[in-house]
């Protein structure tokens, strides 16, 4: 039987597997976005806003910078066995005027990334147990790179 696919963390992204989006907030007074979403105070020091609407952030952005994790990160990261290195990207979202971190989908190495490359949000497995696959958001280059990207 297929494992149940659940978010690794509730409330941070939608579970629409075809077109997932990060869930942030937008201050109803000044328009400042936050990710993760804000409920109590606006980050803008010139704003006294206290009401925030939950919003889906742009699904596409451009790479601000990138790296990878050649060595297995320590807990609470739950690594695959055996460990497989992965890339990480910080991605600039134009409408929100902010940069959001994420892992890059498996199979895309740093050689296939560069600053400014367009990426889009997908959901992918972060780790599994006997009954569940725990999903997280990852960035995937929009244009397929070499044979491995854009699965």
């Amino acid at each position, binding site marked *: 039987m297929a494992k149940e696919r659940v978010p690794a963390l509730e409330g941070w992204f939608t579970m629409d597997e075809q077109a997932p989006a990060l869930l942030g907030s937008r201050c109803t007074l000044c328009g400042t976005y936050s990710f993760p979403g804000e409920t109590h105070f606006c980050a803008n020091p010139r704003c006294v806003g206290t009401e925030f609407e939950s919003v889906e952030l742009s699904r596409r952005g451009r790479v601000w*910078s990138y790296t990878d994790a050649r060595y297995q*990160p320590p807990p*609470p990261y739950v690594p695959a066995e055996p460990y497989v290195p992965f890339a990480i990207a910080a991605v600039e979202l134009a409408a929100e*005027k902010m940069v959001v971190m994420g892992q890059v989908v498996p199979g895309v190495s740093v050689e296939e990334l560069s*600053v400014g490359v367009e990426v889009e949000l997908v959901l992918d497995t972060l780790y599994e147990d006997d009954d569940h696959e725990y999903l997280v958001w990852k960035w995937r280059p929009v244009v397929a790179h070499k044979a491995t990207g854009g699965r």
Partner: protein
Amino acid sequence: MPDDTRVAVLGAGMHPWGKWGRNFVEYGLVAARDALADAGVLWEDIGFVSGADTIRNGYPGFIAGATFAQALGWTGARVSSCYAACASGAAAIANARAQILAGLCDVALVVGADTTPKGFFAPVGGERKDDPDWLRFHLLGATNPAYFALYARRRMDRFGATDEDFAQVKVKNARHGFSNPNARYRREVTVEEVLASPMVADPLRLLEICATSDGGAALVLSSLEFARRHGAADPLVTVSAVSTVTPRFPNTVIEMPNFSTDSAAGVTGEFDTAGFRPSIARAAYDEAGIGPEDLDLAEVYDLSAALELDWYEDIGLCGEGEAEKLLRDGATTLGGRVPVNPSGGLSCFGEAIPAQAIAQVCECTWQLRGQAPGRQVEGARVAVTANQGLFGHGSSVLLTR
């Protein structure tokens, strides 16, 4: 502000950095006694103990000021303990300085020490889904070097920094720290050796990323009046400014341990896109009325070799995108215009979090006194330290003689 915001550095002391595996209190105690002896001040004469906390050593680490006071023997001295991540040492210095400048005490002891686990820094234990530091490891596997690497890659893309430039920073610092008795790593390396070391977080290699270390550092600070009465050694080194600034909104540069930057979508008009780091030393310069052109040396937080290049620009040694040229010209090497990290920096020390910003000030003190054999910046009169603690803690101390 008082007319004269200077306080005297009467004494500086350290326990050598290493991976000793002993209780952090021991390192702090050795450093404190060393600083007291250097100052010629008795422990009983200390009016205020300012501890920099460690969060990986249980309760005694959270109340480090009292822990060190008890270890030295209770005297009734007033106490504070503070945590500001990597900037904890500077925050402890700022607390002591404020007490002195307010006239609440004449002479204060500042101590920070740490015992660190092996390998990557990990968040403290438990399942804490409301803590971004816990979550970035859990959801992203984003270690500290991953964040350093984002900055390094960005430098390569924007300014044409090369792998060789980063390696050259390591080569320089290894040479600087070679004869420093408090440094953990005292071995010269070549560019080839650095480039042959394993890639950890592309483009950063093992020898370009600072280790985690055990160590302790301490300072005895006093009012200028106390220093005069005490007959302090000549030349007298003073702390002329301390910056403990926070970022300004919107900070559009990604900062450890965050998932995102501030959003600038709600900002009308111009805003600074350079991020937090350039504001840190600037606040110290402004406070002292001294500029980067006056510097003889700097101790900056080289968590990675590439980050040292960012600091050159952030502390005003050169303009944006000019750090590689400064390095290649030898300006930041001993004998150059403004040597950076003559101590060997984190590259040779590794990081002992609450001790590190204090250690930077110890090094500057010894440099300004002419007591740094093998790594002395000749005739140094003005020095600055710069450092940044996660969750928005700036740290910069300006020293003069």
